[in-house]
C-alpha cells in the first residue's frame, strides 16, 4: 500500500508540475529563455532537450548534496548559494566534456547550455525539492515534470510565433511585446487546469 501511494504521489507531482503549475504559464518563471529561443522551432526543440536533461541531472545532484551533506551539517541556510554552485559546476563540466567527447552533439546543443545556468527554473526546482522535503523519486518527478512542462511551453510558443511572422501586427507591438501578450493569453487558457490537483 505504501509503495503504490508513493508512485501515485510521484505521478501527481509529475502532472502537476508539467501542466497545472506549469513554470511558464502558471508561475511566470524562466521567461528570458522562453522568449529568447522561441523565435524558431529548431532552437525551441534544441533547448527543450538540453533543458530537460540538465534539469533532471542537476536536481538529483542537488538532492544528494542537500540530503547527505547540508542537512547533517545544518547548512540548509546556504541552499541558494550551494545549489547555484552545483548547477553551474555541473553545466560547465557537461559543456567541457561534451566538447571533448561528442563534438557533434556539442555543436547542436552546446549553445543552450550556457544559457541554462542563468535560468530561474533550474534553481527553483532544487529549492522546491528541498523546501517540500521530497524524496529522490519525487525530486526526479518534479524535475522531469518541470522539464516537460517547459518544453511544452517552448514548442507551443515557437509554433505560434512562426505563424505570427506572417501576421500584420501593429508596428509598436512587433517582436517581444506581442510575444508577452501571447504568453498572457496562453496563461489564460492554462487556467483551465487550475484546481485539478492540489498538492
Amino acid at each position, binding site marked *: 500500500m505504501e509503495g503504490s501511494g508513493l508512485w501515485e504521489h510521484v505521478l501527481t507531482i509529475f502532472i502537476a508540475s508539467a501542466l497545472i503549475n506549469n513554470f511558464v504559464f502558471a508561475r511566470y518563471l524562466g521567461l528570458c529563455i522562453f522568449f529568447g529561443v522561441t523565435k524558431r522551432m529548431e532552437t525551441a526543440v534544441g533547448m527543450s532537450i538540453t533543458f530537460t536533461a540538465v534539469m533532471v541531472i542537476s536536481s538529483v545532484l542537488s538532492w544528494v548534496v542537500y540530503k547527505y551533506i547540508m542537512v547533517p551539517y545544518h547548512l540548509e541556510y546556504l541552499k541558494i548559494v550551494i545549489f547555484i554552485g552545483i548547477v553551474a559546476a555541473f553545466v560547465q563540466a557537461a559543456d567541457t566534456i561534451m566538447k571533448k567527447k561528442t563534438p557533434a552533439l556539442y555543436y547542436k546543443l552546446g549553445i543552450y547550455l550556457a544559457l541554462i545556468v542563468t535560468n530561474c527554473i533550474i534553481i527553483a526546482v532544487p529549492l522546491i525539492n528541498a523546501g517540500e522535503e521530497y524524496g529522490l523519486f519525487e525530486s526526479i518527478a518534479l524535475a522531469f515534470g518541470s522539464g516537460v512542462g517547459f518544453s511544452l511551453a517552448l514548442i507551443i510558443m515557437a509554433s505560434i510565433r512562426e505563424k505570427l511572422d506572417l501576421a500584420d501586427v501593429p508596428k509598436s507591438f512587433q517582436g517581444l511585446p506581442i510575444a508577452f501578450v501571447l504568453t498572457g493569453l496562453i496563461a489564460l487558457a492554462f487556467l483551465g487546469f487550475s484546481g*485539478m490537483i492540489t498538492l
Partner: protein
Amino acid sequence: MEGAVKEQQQAQPQLIVSVGPHMRSSESTATIMWTVSGALMPAALMGVYYFGFRAVAIILVSIVTAILSEALTQMALRKPVTVSDGSAFLTGLLIALNVPSSVPLYIPAVGSFVAIVITKQLFGGLGFNIFNPALIGRAFILISFPKQMTTYYKPVMNVTGMDAVTTATPLGLLKEDGLAALLEVFHTKAELYQHLFVGNRAGSLGETSIAALLLGAFFLLFIKRYITWHIPISFIATVGLLTWLFGGTEGLLSGDAIFHMLSGGLILGAFFMATDYVTGPSVRSAQVIFGICAGALTALIRLKGGYPEGVMFAILLMNCFAPLLDRRVRSRVFGKIAVKELK
C-alpha cells in the same frame, strides 16, 4: 496574307493566363460571418424568451461594444475600417450568448473590448488571431468577475425579466451536490433531458436551448456547408464517451453521457466556436485530432477540474496547439541542403 493570320488568330480559342484562384464564388468573409450570426439567431431568441429583457440588453451592449472597439482600433492603427464584414458583430453576439443573464452590463462590454482589441486587432486583425476572440473575452471576464459570471438566473419567461431567482446550472449542481440534488430539481432523468433539450434551465444566455442551437448548426452544416462535421462531432462524441466511462459514481461505465452532451456550453462551443476557420487546424485529419483533444480536455475539466464547465478552456487550449497540428502537413521544401552535407 496579313488578313489570313488575323483570321487564324481569331479562330483559336482565347486562352487567358492568370494566377490562381481560378474558381470564384460570390461568397466572401462578410457573407459567412453574417450567415453564422444568422444561424445563432434561434439560440439568441430562445435566450430572450427564457431570460427576458435583460438578455436583449446584454446582446445589444456586447455587440455595440465589439463594433465600436473594432472601428476605433482600426482608425487608431490607420487601417481600413472593416466592421461591415460582420466579424465584430459575431464576436459580440457570441460573448453575449456566453454570459449568464444576471451580469451587470459592463461585464459583457469588457469582454467584447478584450476580445476585439487584445485578441484580434493586436495580432493583426481578422485572420491572424491565434485564439478565438469571443472565448478569450469570456475567459477574461470569468477570471476577473468570478462571482457575477457564475450567478445564474432560473428562466423567468416574462418580458421584464424581473422576479428572477438565482440558481446553479445543472453542471454546477452535479459538481457541487451530486446527481441526487440534480434529480431533486428535475424529478426524473427523462424530464431532465427534456429540459436540457428545449433549454428551460439555468445557464448562459445562448447555450441553454440545444434544439435552437442544433437548428442553426444544421443550417451551417448541411445547407450552407460552411462548417464540416470533423471538429464538432469528434468533440461531442469524445465528451460523451469519456463522461460515460469515467463520469459515474459507481465505477466505470456508469456516467451519464447524454446529460454531459446536452449540458453546459458544449453544443454552442463545438458547432460555433471550435469550428472557427482562423483558430483551428485546416486539414481534416488534424481537425479530428483537435476535436478529440478538446473533448478529452472538456471531460477532464468537468470531472476533475476546479471549474464545473470546461468547454471554453478546452477550445482555448486547443487553439494553442492548432499551429502545431497544422505543421505536420506543411509541404517539404525541395532543393535544401542539410547542414551536415555542407561540412
